[in-house]
Structure formats: structure tokens, C-alpha cells
């Protein structure tokens, strides 16, 4: 009968996805977490020393490069948050002026189609002291100009932040534009009638109304920052020294250069924990938002 069949067929169709989830995600995550408690080096070693199961984590947090990575993660997150700020400003301006909206949107968004590797290489070229922007400024007569950020440990991270902002700004602008467009048009005209100033209109009415969009942006940005790897490779390859390492870079490096599965797994596990810490609020907010949406609809 059709009813019977309609029960079995979907289950069969879902099997591949189920296998992918169970093997590719659940099993793989479990395996990595397990490995982080072992002393595996080049090859997996499945014995856990019960007295010393946290050895890899001990080594990890005693490692200077790892502490640098964590610090860079925070610096990068705060720095790239500017992309959200600029994204909102640009979205508000583009939305208000209407003039040339399509053109501006096309320009601001194209970096998103460019890979982070290419982005990094291009900015690396712009930062080149003898051939890039610094040389250009010197030729203009501003000989004290310093734009060789990538060469010194103190400023290299700012170079990466600049490139990340360049790459991500348009994306946040697009999200903000979508958010702005969903705001009821009556609010704009009501505010104008009441003589509310532009500054107050945005800070006291529009931004609070868009807090969900801002939160989404912030969470997406943080998740992106935790994954930051390509851009670091392309711009500095971790250097100078280990000054631009990120947790993602650290984990890959521990596996591919040090060939240490246990150590890499411990770093990856911490990455997962950071992701979950960012992610949990997103789940809660989404649930809350959905319930609000349903409440307002009924």
C-alpha cells in the first residue's frame, strides 16, 4: 500500500545522509577527542594512560605558540568586528540614498567571490615595502610612511585584520541591508514626522530593532575567525616567528609539520569547544526568535 511505502522510502533515502552524519561527523569528532587523550604521534595509538590523560592539554597550554594563537584569535575577532561596523554604515548609506545601490553593492560584495588565498596574496603584495604602497607613499614624498606591517611581529596581525575586513565587509553589508529592508517603512516616515534626528533614529530605534541581525553577524564573524587559516597562510604563513599563528593554523601545523596526531587533536578539541561556546547562544537566540515570530503571527 502507498501508506506503507511512504514510510519506508524516505527512510531509505535518508540513509546516506545519516551515514555521513554518523561517520563523517559524530564518529570523526569522537575519534579526535579520544585521540587528544592518548599519546599518539605519527600514527594513532589507542591506549590512554589513566593517570596522565590530560598530558596533551598540559603541553598545549604550556606551549608559547598556542598562547599566541589564542591571543591572536581575540585580536582578530575584535579587529574584524570593524567589518560589521562598516558593513552597517555602508548598508545604512546605500539604503538611504538609493542612488547607485546596485553599483555599490556589486563593488562591495565582489571580494566575497575571491578566495582567501588570493585575498591574502594580493594584500601581501600591497604591503610589500619596496614595491607596494609604502614605496608609492615614499615616491609621493612622504618618506616616513610605514606600511610594512607584515614584517614586524607587533603589526603583522593588523595586516591580516585589514585584509579580513576587506574580504568580509560586503558580506556584512548584505546581511545588514536585508535587515534594514525588513524594517517597516512606516517607522521611517513616523520618525520624520516626529522630527527625530538621524543620529537618534539610528542609535535609538533602528539599531535596537536590528539586534538580531547584529547578533547573527557577530556569531558568524566569530565562527569565521576560529576557522581563520587560509588568510594567515597566504599573508604571513604564521610569521614573523609564530606571531600570526591562530588556533586553526596551530592545529594543522601540529599535524602536518610536527606529525603529532595527539597534539593536533587536543588543539582541534579546544577549537571545537570555542566554537560551541560561540554557537550555543546562536541556538538559544534562534529558538527565542522563532518563538517570538510565531507569537506575533498568531
Amino acid at each position, binding site marked *: 500500500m*502507498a501508506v506503507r511505502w*511512504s514510510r519506508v522510502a524516505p527512510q531509505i533515502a535518508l540513509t546516506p545522509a545519516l551515514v555521513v*552524519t554518523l561517520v*563523517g561527523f559524530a564518529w570523526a569528532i569522537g575519534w579526535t577527542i579520544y585521540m587528544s587523550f592518548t599519546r599518539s604521534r605519527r600514527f594513532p595509538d589507542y591506549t590512554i594512560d589513566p593517570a596522565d590523560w590530560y598530558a596533551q592539554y598540559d603541553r598545549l597550554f604550556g606551549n608559547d605558540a598556542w598562547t599566541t594563537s589564542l591571543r591572536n584569535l581575540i585580536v582578530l575577532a575584535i579587529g574584524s568586528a570593524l567589518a560589521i561596523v562598516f558593513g552597517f554604515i555602508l548598508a545604512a548609506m546605500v539604503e538611504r540614498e538609493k542612488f547607485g545601490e546596485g553599483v555599490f553593492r556589486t563593488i562591495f560584495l565582489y571580494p566575497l567571490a575571491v*578566495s582567501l588565498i588570493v585575498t591574502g596574496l594580493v594584500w601581501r603584495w600591497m604591503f610589500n615595502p619596496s614595491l607596494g604602497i609604502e614605496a608609492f607613499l615614499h615616491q609621493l614624498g612622504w618618506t616616513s610612511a610605514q606600511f610594512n606591517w607584515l614584517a614586524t611581529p607587533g603589526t603583522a596581525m593588523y595586516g591580516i585584520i585589514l585584509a579580513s575586513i576587506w574580504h568580509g*565587509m560586503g558580506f556584512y553589508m548584505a546581511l545588514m541591508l536585508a535587515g534594514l529592508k525588513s524594517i517597516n517603512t512606516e517607522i521611517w516616515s513616523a520618525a520624520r514626522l516626529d522630527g527625530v534626528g538621524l543620529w537618534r533614529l539610528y542609535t535609538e530605534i533602528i539599531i535596537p530593532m536590528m539586534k538580531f541581525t547584529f547578533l547573527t553577524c557577530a556569531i558568524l564573524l566569530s565562527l569565521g575567525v*576560529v576557522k581563520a587559516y587560509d588568510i594567515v597562510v597566504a599573508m604571513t604563513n604564521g610569521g614573523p616567528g609564530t606571531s600570526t599563528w591562530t588556533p586553526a593554523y596551530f592545529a594543522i601545523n601540529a599535524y602536518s609539520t610536527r606529525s603529532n596526531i595527539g597534539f593536533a587533536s587536543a588543539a*582541534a578539541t579546544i577549537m571545537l569547544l570555542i566554537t560551541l561556546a560561540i554557537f550555543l547562544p546562536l541556538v538559544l537566540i534562534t529558538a527565542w526568535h522563532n518563538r517570538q515570530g510565531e507569537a506575533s503571527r498568531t
Partner: protein
Amino acid sequence: MSSDPEIATFPASLGAAARSVRRRRRIRGSSIAVFVFLCMCAAFVAIPLYVVIVTSFKPIEEVTLGRIFALPVHWTLTPWYKAWNTLCTGLSCDGIKVGFFNSLAILFPSLVLSIGLSSVTGYALALWNVRWAGTFLFILFICAFVPFQIIMIPLIVLVSNIGLYGSVWGIALVHAILAMPLLTLIFRNFYKDIPRELINAAIMDSGNFWHIFREIVLPMSANIMIVVLILMITTVWNDYLVGLTFGGISAAPMTVILANAVVTSRGEVIHNVNMAAALLTAIPPLVVYFALGRFFVQGITAGAIKG
């Protein structure tokens, strides 16, 4: 704000006229400021592309002058030719074309695998009564955000065991696994808006699961297919990490070869050739972007929020 009280003393008509002149002038002034600011930001965004294009057409003698914003005096295609045919990666000097064909060979199976798998899954979860659908969707939601590093090493072990490590098929398989949660959520969100009556009527009409998918659901999915296609093409083409960790030496995609040539190879750095190679790598997704901009925005935001 200037809600000028003195205007009230004018005769009504004059006041209105003065006010409208004032308002028009004020808006135009701020409009120009906004427009200038937008243009400056657009310049910040556009300049790197301009610099790369200009550099890639310059002969090396002009590049070493350091005039990064100047147009080439003598336009040349040699850097492009060299980038395509003789770019060196430290191991070999076969140019970026090897990576281009590897990237193509990775792209097509990943598209077929990931879209095939997730559209069917999304359809089953959206339109058929599966008891654990809610739980499964929640798990997929989490999986969509998991960092790649946490599943990388076991997947390498797995892919090596089935003999696909270092082949384009291995990379395509990993791309399909990575993309499955997000794409499934996108498809499911799209399909759940198909009216249930339509499906129930089709079941009455002795349509089975696959029949309904082929005859009713697929023909309705043109829009979402384009969005997902764009999302996948840009993700797979721009990917570096999966290609690096699963490609070995023989199946390295374009981004890996480019990064090797510029970042890790020792020896003479030829900037104009590198820039041409970077452009060659960036062109396919850029073409997709400029040709299908509207869908591109939808794809990116769907990829971001709907998850």
C-alpha cells in the same frame, strides 16, 4: 536638528516654500557627503583588484620601479603565459594550468555528490513524515558549524583506507561530506513551503517517493538549485584547506598550487607572474559573481543565515 521655530512667524505659504527649499538643500548636502564616503569605501574595495590587474600586465622591469598604481607603459601578456605554463611550485614548473584542471576535476563530482545527496535528504525531511526529522535537523545544524580541524585527521585515515587519498575523488568526497549539513538545511527550508496538499494528492495518485521528487519537486527547484550551485562553486573553487590536506601532490587544486608558488617556494619571486596566477585563480568565481550577482547574494546569505 533644525526644526526652525522662526519659520512659524512667516506667512504660511512663504514658510512652506522656505522650508521646502531648506530641506532640499540640506538633503542634497548630506547626500553628497554620503556619496563621497561611499565612493571612498568603494575605492578601498576596488583598488586591490585594480593593482593586481595592472601588475599582471606589466613587464618585470616596470614592476620593480615600485609604481604600484601606475598603468603599464608596455602592456604584455607574458606574465599570463608564464603563470599558466611555467609557474614553479618548488617541486615542478608546470604552471597553474595543472591546478586549474585539478580544480575542475574536483568541482564536478563535488557538485553532483553534494547536491544530489542534500536535495534528496532535504526533500525527505521537509515533505515526508519522518519521526526523528526534528532531531536530525538539529544535529545537522550543529554539524554545519563544526570546525574542519576536528574531523580532519579521522577523515584522512578513512579516505586513505578506501584508497582515495591524494585523488580528486577523495577531495570531492570530503567536500560533499562538509557541505551536506548546510545544503540539506537550505533545501529543506525551501521544500517545506511546498503545499502538503500537493504531495498528498500525488501520493493518492500512486506517485511514490522518487516519482514525486522527479516529477513535482525537482521541476520546482530551479531557483534554489542556482543558489546552491553558486554557493558550492565558490566554496569548492576557493577552498584551500581540503585541497591541501587531501590532495597530496598529484591532485592539488589551483589555490594550493598558487599558495605554494608564492608563499612557500624559495628562490626568485616574480611578482607580475604571481599576480597573473592569482587572477587566473580568482577569475572563475568572479565570472560567476558578475554573471549571476543576484543569486550570488541569495546564496551567500542563505548559506549564512538559514543554517
